[in-house]
């Protein structure tokens, strides 16, 4: 009976789309059946920079079943101006336009699309397209690119420049205890399970329905409208299910552009799916170099922070991330200076990947903090507590909440940190060196204006809808719970629609703002339904609710009843019947509002975490096993502890992956990523993942967002790689400052002869 407690906000219900997913009924972008579908196969270029001289497609065209070969030579018109090709989250610069002209900007660039009646024919014919090139000098070596390091005057909208305080140079020079270290992160590709794919349905009247792998259907719709000069009302983009994305689906990818181009030209439905190899020819986490210099008093009081970083971008767009600000915000330290720039290489533009900037910058900062703790001879957790700050040190603002201290305490307790011995290599067991490491995680708690509709039918069935996306994060479930919470309906009576550009406006799914934002929008919409229901109920004959205010009633178990006397109430279906209402339909928009905007100016809003890691390293062979992880997270109110835990588990696995596995290896002679497949681009497998414990510390925060929710999609990865690296140092006594920490970096005589 007590439905509210069972399914509403805070309850650990199963994800509502789980059954569809495990039974294969959830359809992904390349799986929607369309009669008379054509298949497009992308031909990828071989050189990193230069010009296509000849593109020979006659052999391909001669294959029976081939309908067209699209290239720069015969492509239909697309918008001329760069701004028409910019999507909502594009960084400054000139966006890549596939098949636009003969110029090659990066290796693997699409140079043709072969369209045929069957996939097999398209694939075969694609292998017959021959290109010759005029090669120009290129550079993909990020270390060399440092010579071209710069900071453009036009910044990305999401970029926050570091704000310096005190005199970091003087403080560093004077510090009795100091460390200075350079860190490097290899390029990583998102590699979600589902490859980028689009199925474009030609509706006959010139309008299009596009099933796309994206994190933002309205972003794709508006982008396509701009590129092809179409009215947005003639394009409907659908992404009801997305097989992971991690940021790779924030921007429209070139397969959707190609598929729509082909569909419009041929006036047929077209599907284009990237290969796994082609997943290495677009966005990636930028390669990064970070230099951290830290100073402290002998007692461990931090006195100087100098934090400088460079990340890679392409030659045609300037992608930027917030890399250096995190440590400057987090620690009490009077003198801090940050500096950040980008350096161009001849690859596709780097793009946001789970916790962009923080996953890189906070990880390296936390590795440096560990070094400083050791230089000062202080336990690394104690060192962090000693330099704890209740306020945002960089912006000089309070946080809406910061329960990091509680996260440290609860994490340390669960992990057994107090049993750690400080000296490296001091916790050996048999041939295994045991190491315990700690690090801090930090991410934004953002809120983004979002709309949602709610529609209650006479039979008590509720549909809530928003153009939000669920990239595996649990948006369907969050929306269900927000609705159940407000209207007290059982889950079976609630249907959620999302992943459709024609639904009420929602931002792209990224930045961990979706749960807080769409949850608030659904709550608002459902509240508006509730108000209408109550006023109808009050008008019923002999209504037990006559004159009752919203505060005086409770929606629960499909009924509206007085809080003080739950026996007195009416069923929602009864209210609908009595008032002769077929349907109540509303749409509401959740925005920060005036008070929220003022709060955003005056206060910092962040999630925090404390990560504790145990590694076991074979002394002789350098084989690392991450045997235990505790991640204690302070993220405000938790909508669903089960899906929330899954988000953190995934983040931790990705952090372990960043620490030990992921690396896109480039042959700089060819300017090409070489390990472009799942066999050689390594992510952890089951054997690499052991015990992961997730703790959510209590952090009530009514101010941060309307629901008090902070979001969890990204915080799980931030700092995790640092905790692993710090644990490896504790185990082996060796500081490895280049991620990933592969076996070659640990097999040496300093670890064991």
């Amino acid at each position: 009976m007590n439905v509210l407690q069972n399914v509403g906000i805070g309850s650990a219900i199963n994800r509502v789309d789980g059954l569809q997913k495990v039974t294969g009924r959830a359809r992904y972008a390349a799986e929607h059946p369309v009669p008379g579908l054509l298949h497009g196969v992308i031909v990828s270029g071989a050189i990193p920079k230069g010009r296509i001289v000849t593109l020979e497609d006659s052999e391909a065209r001669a294959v029976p079943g081939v309908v067209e070969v699209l290239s720069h030579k015969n492509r239909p018109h697309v918008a001329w101006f760069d701004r028409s090709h910019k999507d909502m989250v594009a960084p400054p610069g000139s966006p890549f336009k596939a098949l636009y002209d003969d110029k090659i900007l990066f290796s693997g660039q699409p140079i043709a699309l072969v369209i045929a009646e069957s996939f097999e024919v398209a694939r075969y014919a694609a292998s017959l397209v021959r290109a010759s090139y005029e090669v120009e000098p290129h550079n993909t070596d990020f270390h060399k690119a440092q010579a071209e390091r710069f900071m453009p005057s036009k910044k990305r909208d999401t970029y926050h420049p570091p704000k310096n305080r005190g005199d970091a140079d003087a403080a560093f020079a004077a510090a009795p205890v100091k460390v200075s270290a350079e860190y490097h992160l290899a390029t990583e590709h998102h590699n979600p399970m589902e490859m980028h794919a689009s199925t474009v349905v030609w509706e006959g009247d010139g309008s299009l329905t596009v099933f796309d792998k994206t994190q933002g259907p309205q972003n794709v719709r508006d982008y396509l409208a701009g590129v092809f000069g179409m009215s947005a009302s003639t394009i409907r983009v659908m992404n009801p299910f997305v097989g992971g994305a991690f940021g790779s689906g924030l921007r429209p990818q070139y397969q959707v552009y190609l598929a729509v181009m082909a569909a419009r030209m041929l006036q047929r439905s077209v599907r284009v799916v990237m290969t796994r190899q082609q997943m290495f020819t677009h966005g990636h986490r930028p390669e990064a170099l970070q230099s951290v210099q830290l100073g402290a008093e002998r007692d461990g009081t931090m006195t100087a922070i100098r934090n400088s970083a460079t990340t890679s971008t392409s030659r045609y767009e300037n992608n930027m991330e917030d890399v250096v600000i995190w440590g400057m915000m987090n620690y009490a330290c009077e003198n801090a200076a940050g500096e950040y720039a980008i350096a161009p290489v001849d690859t596709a533009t780097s793009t946001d990947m789970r916790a962009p900037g923080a996953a890189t910058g906070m990880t390296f900062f936390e590795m440096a903090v560990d070094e400083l703790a050791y230089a000062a001879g202080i336990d690394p957790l104690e060192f962090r507590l000693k330099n704890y700050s209740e306020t945002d040190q960089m912006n000089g603002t309070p946080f809406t909440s910061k329960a990091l201290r509680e996260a440290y305490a609860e994490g340390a307790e669960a992990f057994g940190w107090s049993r750690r011995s400080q000296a490296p290599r001091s916790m050996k067991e048999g041939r295994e060196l045991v190491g315990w490491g700690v690090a801090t995680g930090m991410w934004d708690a953002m809120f983004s204006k979002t709309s949602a509709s709610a529609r209650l039918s006479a039979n008590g069935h509720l549909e809530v809808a928003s153009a939000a996306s669920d990239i595996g994060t649990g948006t369907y479930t969050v929306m269900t719970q927000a609705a159940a919470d407000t209207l007290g309906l059982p889950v079976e009576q609630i249907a959620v629609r999302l992943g459709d550009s024609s639904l009420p406006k929602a931002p792209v799914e990224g930045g961990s703002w979706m749960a807080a934002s769409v949850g608030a929008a659904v709550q608002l919409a459902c509240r508006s339904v509730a108000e209408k229901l109550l006023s109808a109920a009050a008008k019923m004959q002999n209504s037990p609710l006559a004159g009752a205010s919203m505060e005086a009633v409770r929606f629960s178990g499909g009924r509206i009843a007085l809080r003080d006397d739950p026996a007195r109430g009416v069923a929602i279906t009864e209210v609908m019947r009595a008032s002769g209402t077929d349907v109540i339909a509303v749409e509401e928009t959740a925005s920060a509002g005036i008070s929220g905007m003022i709060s955003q100016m005056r206060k910092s809003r962040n999630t925090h975490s404390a990560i504790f890691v145990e590694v076991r390293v074979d002394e002789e062979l350098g084989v690392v096993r991450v045997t235990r992880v505790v991640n204690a997270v302070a993220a405000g109110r938790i909508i669903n502890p089960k899906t929330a835990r899954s988000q953190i588990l995934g983040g931790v696995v990705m952090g372990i992956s960043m620490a030990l596995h992921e690396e896109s290896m480039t042959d700089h002679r060819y300017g090409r990523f070489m390990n472009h497949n799942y066999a050689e681009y390594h992510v952890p497998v089951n054997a690499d993942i052991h015990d992961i414990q997730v703790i959510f510390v209590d952090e009530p925060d009514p101010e941060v967002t309307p629901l008090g929710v902070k979001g969890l999609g990204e915080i799980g990865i931030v700092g995790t790689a640092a905790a692993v690296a710090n644990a490896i140092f504790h185990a082996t006594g060796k500081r490895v400052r280049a991620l990933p920490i592969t076996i070659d970096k640990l097999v040496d005589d300093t670890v064991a002869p």
Partner: protein
Amino acid sequence: MNRFSFTRANSVPEAVRAGGGADTRFLAGGTNLIDLMKENVERPSALVDINRVGLAGIEERPGGGLRLGALVSNADTAYDRRVAERYPLLACAILAGASPQLRNAATNGGNLNQRTRCYYFYDTATPCNKRNPGTGCGAIGGVNRIHAILGASPSCIATNPSDMCVALAALNATVRVTGPDGEREIAFADYHRLPGDAPQHDNTLRTGELVTAIDLPDEDFSAHHTYLKLRDRLSYAFALVSVAVALRMEGDRIAEARIALGGVAHKPWRVPAAEQALAGQPASAENFDRAAELLLRGAQGQGHNDFKIGLARRAIRRALRQAAAGTPQSQTDKRIA
């Protein structure tokens, strides 16, 4: 992927008859061949499906030992009771490779003939002498952390990726083949070859020859063996370095030693001198070091893979210790024994 004809052979003679063309490929489990066809690396004009030719059993050989049919799956081989009891080294090596799904599909004949995982071999936009003879070797001077440190040539520095074959080399297996010219047997050491100036040939199989079986001699190394595989994650990755060791112990002394290395050369790497140096000697750290030194004599890095030399030395030492102590490396518990 290109167009090809497809025939299904119902017997070995039929397969051999159909398989005579230079551009013809036998299709077994398809876990390697189909991948390579999708990448346009293999472009056969004809495929001959051999899954119905028989050769699907494991039998006792008349004079002792076991005969493993070429079409028996890797999984069925590893979990066969006779293999697990009498040739645990082979079972361990198979289970160290790929994933359960792949081992269910992969066959013994296919495993022997699987091709290198060199990145350049797989990427038709780059040069590769093995894929397109005469185009050059992309890996030399390129990304080569997975490449050979032994037996490489200026034409090719690829490695043989198989785990199973490392054990078969150590066990002195024999490969049985049938071709247009009849049947023959190839000692395992002669089956795979070094790249030399013809890296397009991985092995000494002649055009149209079908592997029918792998014979295991009647020898017992079950008490002292190990397969130690080091890779970039704890499972489901190819070996950076692997070591198969089989020892016959007499008390504390090694009566006979077999050591084969994987992941370091174009074929499973054995050095008779290293094995002889251990014969009759106590199982001591110095002797293990000496064997490692002999095994790795002439080893040369290519830059990114320089670390393999040190890693191989340590791995050999450790594997010999594991085998001598009778504590083989578990293929499920990832702690190194």
